[in-house]
């Protein structure tokens, strides 16, 4: 089973969780996801996800000019994003428990 396939379904909640901790710009979010263990995550997937969550109203964005290079676009979580994250956390926890039980049962 390909981890990147699994990742697609949960990237939204992963990104929301990262941004909830602290506002971040595109590559910063990528870096934090990879540091958390999602090493296979693709840059473009994360950037696209950020953009989609922003369009859905889950994130805000603001531009921070940079002295030594091009400006950065930061994303922060909105109240709507927080409630979305809360819902998805619950969904994921239940789903994970179900899967764990299922997989352990099969394995035993």
């Amino acid at each position: 089973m390909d981890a990147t396939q699994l990742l697609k379904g949960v990237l939204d909640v992963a990104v929301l969780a990262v941004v909830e901790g602290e506002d971040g710009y595109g590559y910063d979010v990528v870096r934090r996801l990879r540091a958390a263990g999602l090493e296979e995550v693709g840059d473009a997937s994360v950037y696209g996800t950020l953009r989609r969550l922003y369009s859905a109203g889950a994130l805000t964005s603001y531009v921070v000019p940079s002295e030594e290079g091009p400006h950065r676009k930061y994303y922060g979580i909105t109240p709507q994003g927080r409630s979305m994250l809360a819902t998805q956390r619950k969904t994921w926890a239940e789903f994970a428990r179900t899967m764990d039980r299922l997989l352990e049962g099969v394995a035993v």
Partner: protein
Amino acid sequence: MNATTLPAEIIAFAAAVRASLRDLPADEVEELTDGLEADLAEAYAEDLARELPDPAAYAAELRGAAGLPTPEPVVKQGRLRPIVDGFAETLRDLDRSLRKSPVVAGVLDFLVTLQPAWWIVRGWAAYQVLGGIFGFEGDLLPTHPGYWILMLVLVAGSVAVGLRRWRPWVHALIIVGNIVAAIATLAAMASIPTNAEVWQAWQEADQTYYDDSMAAGPDGTGVWLNGSEVTNIHAYDAKGQPLNGVQLFDQDGKPLATSVPGGNGCLVPSPVDEDGCQTFGAWVPTQLETGATVWNVYPMKMAESTEDEPTTPIAGAVPQDRPAPFVKVPALMRAEPVDADAPKVADPAKKEAEKTP
């Protein structure tokens, strides 16, 4: 935004990603790719060995993750498209693998800064190619103001082409054009004579001049006596009387022709100027019974001609005898009879041998 700190390939990559998204509304593309350069630059700075992915695939991933519609699958027009794409892909791969070495990457970056100079050379090369095709101006630089304008227009066009980013198939055409221009430039460079070649040409010109000035006549014939041109020959028989119609040959049997048909074409020398000529004259050849015209029958006669065409007798001119240097010369000590049935002259050496027992 200060873009000068960005590597050129990141700018190019971001531009290619935006190009792949061009079917989306402009503001959507802007939202989606805003800050892309900063992210890429940071990722790149963090890991120098990192390879930039295929911009189209990257754009597709971006688009998919953002939940945006994928474009209608573009029907690849023509059979050339895969070739063009493959060519572009090969170039990108080559560039990526070459840039793994920092030295090569540095050289490539340096070469990129020389690009504008190439655009100018390319315009000039286009002028040379056009000049070659239409047959005007074979020189390295135009000599006519109109051609200068044409060349400058071509140079400006080449620079304009270089400044824009083109679609792949146009880009492929430009690459082909570049190859043609490079060949034309090399060919033009090869046609510039080296110093040695110029020197050689001068030497040959000198030699030719020397040879020409030494040549007796237009047909290259001539008889010389102590550095002076022999223009006519006067023969005298054994009794010292002038002979007419003497046919002369050299040791190989070749006709002994003097300065003909040009040569010293003066019928009457100028009475005042030693080197001048009052009446011009053309040497007149002699007809043999075979019908051949020969120039080795002496003394040769001369017919009046003009200064403009000294070698062509004027119409109706009568061939005239040339004054002989001597009316008569001393006879030989023992004039031999010329009769055919006369006894053969004995060989003096044989006579000597007969005397000796």
